[in-house]
Every structure is written in C-alpha cells, then in structure tokens.
C-alpha cells in the first residue's frame, strides 16, 4: 500500500466532495458527487476489497448519480437559481469533524501498519453470502423490491 497512491486518491476524493457541498449550481454539484465516489471506490481498491469498489462504481455512479440527475431534470424550476448557503451548517460540520478527530486520536492502538492478509476473492465473498449471510441477502432483496414498488407508486401520476 503506497503513500503516493494514498495521497493522490485522498485529494481526488476530498476535493470533489467539498465541491459537491459548496457549488451553487446543482448539476455541477451532482457531477462532482459522482467524481467523489470514484475516489472512494479507489480507496476500496487500495484497501484490497476490489469487489466492494466495483459494486460502489456500479451502484453509486451507474445508478444513484443517474437517478439524481434525472430528478434534477424533472424538478427543473429551482435548478437554474443558485442555492442559498447556511453558514450555521459549516460550524456544526467543523464541530463534528473535531469531535471525530479527537475520538480517533484518543483511542490507543490505532496507528498500526496494514498487516499481511490473504486476498479476498469473489469466490470467497460468494460462499460467505450464501452460507453465513443468506438471511441478510434475502432481506436486502425484499427491501429492494419494496423500494422499487414504493418509488413507482410515489411518482405515478394519478389517473383523472
């Protein structure tokens, strides 16, 4: 795990995330949000969980980002006008960040180097999903079906 890669990916993630939180135009914010998720997927690759990184690109950028831009398209009247910024939120966000950093540095034993682990293959994830985690898998399937039907009902136009 190299430091240069870590720094590059960290910049690639945090800069678009900040842009997504602060850009006035909604479309630019949505597209930098997609770029931030590419950075997070790169973090997952760096950490050795390639399957999670690929699922992240697939689900977040291929589906959630497209949903967000479609919604921006369908609620167009407000998208042209820039948004008002609330500075109280900045204070709270900085306070939360400070609290988290304080908690991290107060915990002993976290400054460890990455240990040598065996690579996590897709086959292993599949085995685990089907044996130990089969109940959560079925429940997630149910949740996704319910979300699909619910979202469709919410946006269906009522027949006059």
């Amino acid at each position: 795990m190299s430091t240069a890669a870590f720094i590059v990916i960290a910049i690639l993630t945090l800069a678009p995330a900040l842009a997504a939180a602060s850009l006035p135009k909604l479309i630019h914010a949505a597209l930098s949000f997609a770029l931030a998720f590419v950075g997070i997927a790169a973090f997952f690759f760096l950490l050795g969980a390639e399957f999670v990184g690929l699922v992240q690109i697939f689900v977040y950028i291929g589906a959630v980002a497209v949903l967000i831009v479609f919604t921006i398209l369908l609620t167009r009247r407000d998208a042209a006008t820039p948004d008002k910024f609330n500075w109280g939120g900045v204070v709270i966000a900085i306070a939360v960040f400070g609290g988290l950093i304080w908690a991290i540095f107060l915990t002993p034993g976290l400054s460890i180097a990455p240990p040598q682990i065996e690579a996590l293959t897709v086959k292993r994830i599949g085995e685990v999903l089907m044996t130990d985690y089969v109940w959560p898998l079925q429940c997630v399937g149910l949740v996704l079906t319910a979300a699909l039907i619910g979202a469709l009902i919410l946006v269906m136009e009522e027949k006059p």
Partner: protein
Amino acid sequence: MTPTLTLFLTISAALFSIGLLAALSRRHAIFILIGIEMMLAAANLNFVAFWRFSPQPQPPIGVMVAIFSIAIAAAEAAVGLALVIAIYRHYRTTNVDQLDQLQG
C-alpha cells in the same frame, strides 16, 4: 511511511463531515440527499478500513456490511428521490424551507 489506520479513519471522518456540511447548509432537497449519500459512503469506508487492519476474522464481516450498506443506500436514494419528485409535483418547490405545513 505506509498509511496507518488513523489516516484512513481521518479521511472517512473528513468525508462524513463534508457530507454533514452538504446536508445541513443547503436548502434544496436534492443537495441534502447528496450529503446523506456521502455520509453513508464514509461509514462504508470506515468498515472496510477496520476490516483491512484487523487480524482476519472469518467470515469477512467488514466487507459484507459494506456491500449490504451500498445496496440499502441505493434503495433509500431511490425512494428519497421519488419523494422529492412527488413533493415537487404538489408544491412546485424543492426548497425545504417552504415545506412547513405541519409546523406549529
């Protein structure tokens, strides 16, 4: 200097607070959803970082939780965006300050 666990946790804390910033300081409903998705992704990063730096339990719990969390986040984004569209159809606005009919 190889990246330690502290560095990864700092990055995910930063991402979480940026998501919180987006969710708290914006008035457009979709911006708030973007912030929430970022917070979820930061939590996933935390899980996978802890899995990587720990002596390996079998099964790989951190990775599994991250996968399920991504699936649930997609479902929640879909329903949230459907709600935004439904609200826009009714009230013709996506500014959450103006959705105050149940107030007081």
